[in-house]
């Protein structure tokens, strides 16, 4: 047992600091007793009581600090002394409050407090478990705020009640399950950084909105606002409340000149409501119902589009922007891409005839099915099948032509969405690439806010290694859903993929059409 003592002359620290330092050196391994004190009479008697008083060493008065340490050996004692010295002289940072700030506001725990410190906020973004979402959303609506409801698994009855409440108060509920919005140039949830412009979007689908917005950006246009309605808004029970409100808002908005409405086929009564509203609109509206009755729509509406790409082109035209690469150029583009592919295609074996589409964007998988339907009905499967398309029997073993939405709820149970963590898709890619009957693999790559930062690099590396492995590797078609402004940068991403041996298509529709041409050409 060793006792070491040190005097720090003319140094004052308050008793709390000294207590804390004493405690911290006492807890060092091998320290038996320790005290750091101002050398007052009372404190010296403490040292005596604790057996820490070395009368040979102590020549201190009230203005001095005594550090006394009793330890198992000299090394430990002196280490403790040094530690105490460091803390006394401020060389060790005692506290780290680690408080996070967002945009200059502190983090708070309740909606009430948030309202108090940021009364100027007029949008509330809600992402709580679905069964509690209604309570929180109601509070926001009662406080007169619009809501972006990111949560999924919100009961349908709750959605109806909330949207009726919002309607009563003249507010908008975007969602539930609304993953994408762009308001005044700012992205919410998963969104791309797009040029600001005059085209407004009201959409019942997240990746649909993303694709539209990046195509518009690519073709030279810009987005005023992109509002989401949630995927169930156009069901009979909900009655399109949010979609109608979005159209109202965009019609009134000074920065919006053209409106695009996108959705999957609504309930027929709701569809009629929407069509009526669109036809009354003061501004031109492009209606894009993916998988809808295109003939009926063309009869009833002035501006209809069958694919997201067509909708983007149409909106651009209506807003008066001249763009290189009109619709007529589409067939040219496909012909050219096909020509580039001739070499790769000639290397394929006779047993390679199938297409596998591995999508992270649900709407993009949906659109791909729409396009591929004509010519592959009997042998087309999907885990989110359109009417007439066969459901996948076993996710672990694809057959025929298969299109998978890897972001589907069943696949994301307890797992992050593939846009956030692409690992699950990489696994599928390796599997399909190893399947000797596969000729073409189709992929969407979504960039922008919320997306995985290394997704492009990872995918390129994977494709490169697979193409290098065997002569008969399938053709990889990739559509990058992104812009030059996105952090991962569109052209840099496309270049990486091309260098890796993939064929890059500027839109999802184009990619699907190309895939169809390839299959027909092979077959």
């Amino acid at each position, binding site marked *: 047992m060793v006792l070491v003592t040190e005097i720090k002359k003319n140094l004052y620290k*308050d*008793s*709390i600091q000294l*207590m*804390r330092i*004493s*405690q911290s050196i006492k807890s060092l391994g091998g320290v038996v007793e320790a*005290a750091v*004190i101002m050398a007052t009479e009372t*404190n010296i008697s*403490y040292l005596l*009581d*604790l057996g820490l008083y070395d009368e040979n060493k102590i020549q201190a008065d009230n203005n001095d600090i005594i550090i006394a340490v009793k330890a198992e050996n000299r090394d430990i004692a002196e280490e403790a002394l040094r530690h105490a010295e460091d803390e006394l002289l401020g060389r060790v940072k005692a*506290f780290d*409050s680690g*408080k996070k700030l967002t945009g200059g506001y*502190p983090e*708070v*725990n*309740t909606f*009430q*407090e948030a309202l*108090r410190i940021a009364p100027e906020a007029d949008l509330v973004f809600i992402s709580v478990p679905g069964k509690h979402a209604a309570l929180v959303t109601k509070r926001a609506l009662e406080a007169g705020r619009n809501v972006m409801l990111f949560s999924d698994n919100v009961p349908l009855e709750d959605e109806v009640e909330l949207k009726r409440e919002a309607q009563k108060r003249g507010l908008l509920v975007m969602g539930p399950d609304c993953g994408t919005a762009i308001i005044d140039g700012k992205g919410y949830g998963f969104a791309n950084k797009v040029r600001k412009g005059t085209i407004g979007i009201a959409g019942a689908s997240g990746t649909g909105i993303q694709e539209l917005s990046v195509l518009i950006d690519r073709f030279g246009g810009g987005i005023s606002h992109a509002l989401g309605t949630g995927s169930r808004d156009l069901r009979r029970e909900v009655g399109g409340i949010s979609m109608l409100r979005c159209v109202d808002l965009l019609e009134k908005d000074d920065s919006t000149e053209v409106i695009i409405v996108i959705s999957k086929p609504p309930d027929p009564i709701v569809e009629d409501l929407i069509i009526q509203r669109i036809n009354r609109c003061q501004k031109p509206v492009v209606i894009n119902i993916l998988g809808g009755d295109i003939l009926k729509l063309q009869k009833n509406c002035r501006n209809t589009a069958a694919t997201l790409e067509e909708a983007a082109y149409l909106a651009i035209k209506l807003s008066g922007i001249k763009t290189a690469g009109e619709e007529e150029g589409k067939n040219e583009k496909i012909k050219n891409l096909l020509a580039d592919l001739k070499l790769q295609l000639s290397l394929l074996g006779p047993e390679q005839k199938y297409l596998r589409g591995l999508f992270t964007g649900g709407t993009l998988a949906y659109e791909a099915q729409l396009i591929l339907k004509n010519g592959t009905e009997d042998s087309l499967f999907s885990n989110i099948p359109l009417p007439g398309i066969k459901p996948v029997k076993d996710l672990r073993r694809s057959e025929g032509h298969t299109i998978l939405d890897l972001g589907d709820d069943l696949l994301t149970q307890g797992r992050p969405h593939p846009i956030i963590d692409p690992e699950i898709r990489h696994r599928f890619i390796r599997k399909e690439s190893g399947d000797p009957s596969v000729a073409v693999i189709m992929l969407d790559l979504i960039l922008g806010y919320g997306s995985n930062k290394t997704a492009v690099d990872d995918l390129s590396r994977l494709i490169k290694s697979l193409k290098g492995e065997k002569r008969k590797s399938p053709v990889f078609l990739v559509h990058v859903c992104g812009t030059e402004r996105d952090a991962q940068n569109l052209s840099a991403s496309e270049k990486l993929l091309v260098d890796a041996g993939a064929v890059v298509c500027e839109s999802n529709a184009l990619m699907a059409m190309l895939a169809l041409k390839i299959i027909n050409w092979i077959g």
Partner: protein
Amino acid sequence: MDLEKIKAANKKAVKAMMEAEPVLVGVKPASEVIPGMTKKTILHAAPPIDWKRMCRPMKGAVAGALMLEGLAKNETEAFELAASGEITFDACHNHSSVGPMAGVISSSMPVFVIKNTKHNNMGYCCMNEGRGKVLRYGGLGKEVLDRLKWINEVLGPALDKGIREAGSINVKTILSEALHMGDDLHNRYKAASALFVSRFIPHLFSAVEDKKIAKEVSIFIASNDYTFLNIAMPAMKTMADAGSNVDYSTVVTAMARNGTDFGIQVSGLPGQWFTAPAPEVKALYFPGYGLEDANPDMGDSSITETVGFGGFATAASPVVVQFVGGTPEEEAEQNRLMYEIVVEENPAFTIPVFNFRGIPTGIDILKVVETNICPFGHTGVAHKIEGIGQIGAGKWTAPIELFKKAVIAFSEKYMI
């Protein structure tokens, strides 16, 4: 769940709390003013507890009080009497009273008499004995008893004379000013005590003819930073009581610790105590002492947090960190969290560093359970052996089980 009804009831309860006007009107022996007081009654810090389960400091205080009352001649007799069943024990809170630390009040002890002139309810508390070996830490021996006798015979009557000469002393204004002078009104009372003493002493000298006594008394109260604690606590009790008994209200009207258990009461559930074992205080200890020596949290003084002071106003008292540790920034952040579990902000008492935001008032048991943010405050830590006194200081947090129990009882009563 009819949240609207609850919201309205809470608004009503907290409004009453904030409108209360507590005023010091005198000092009287407990037997004369405290409802239900008898010669053989001993009141103590809440929640109610059996002699068997009392912690040692409280037992020591009880023994001292029994000797003061002449019911026992020494400690041994006192302990036997206390265990015999002849003594009626109850929580001060159940008798419109409060007491710091062990909080023991016996029949002859003089108590501050507070009247809430807005709603006419009363509050009482014993005198503060000062530092050193004192009854509220379970201190026993001649020194303690002599002081208690002096309080009974000299201090109490003298203060009463002075207060009546003044007419009454407004407590609310002193609290409000002291809050702007760095007091947190739980652990730091320097400013409030100084304000009280400076305003009171002229009346004391005017009313007490024997100037020697006046001098003795004025030295006693002037040299004790916590003189005003024992006046503020019953005043806050009357504020909390004003908000109690409101149907459907989920507002907390009492928080107290007796050194063994922690207890709360809720406005819409009058008469019920919800209890849980008192948690350890997260403390810094004086040299030579540690967790193993500490008594669990003790005292009715958490009545201050109940009405928005103490931990709920700690951002107004940066120097409190010299007593309990931490940094002023951390204290301010802890204070800010308390806003998330209350119903209102009291405009009568403001925190300068929060841009004069009113103190967070009216703890809502529903919000506590929803956010998992529990009320907190600071306190001195007593040695678990009676009579030794304070061995450290730190932070207490009310256990969440209290609020969960209260929520369950609330839903059962109101059949939600």
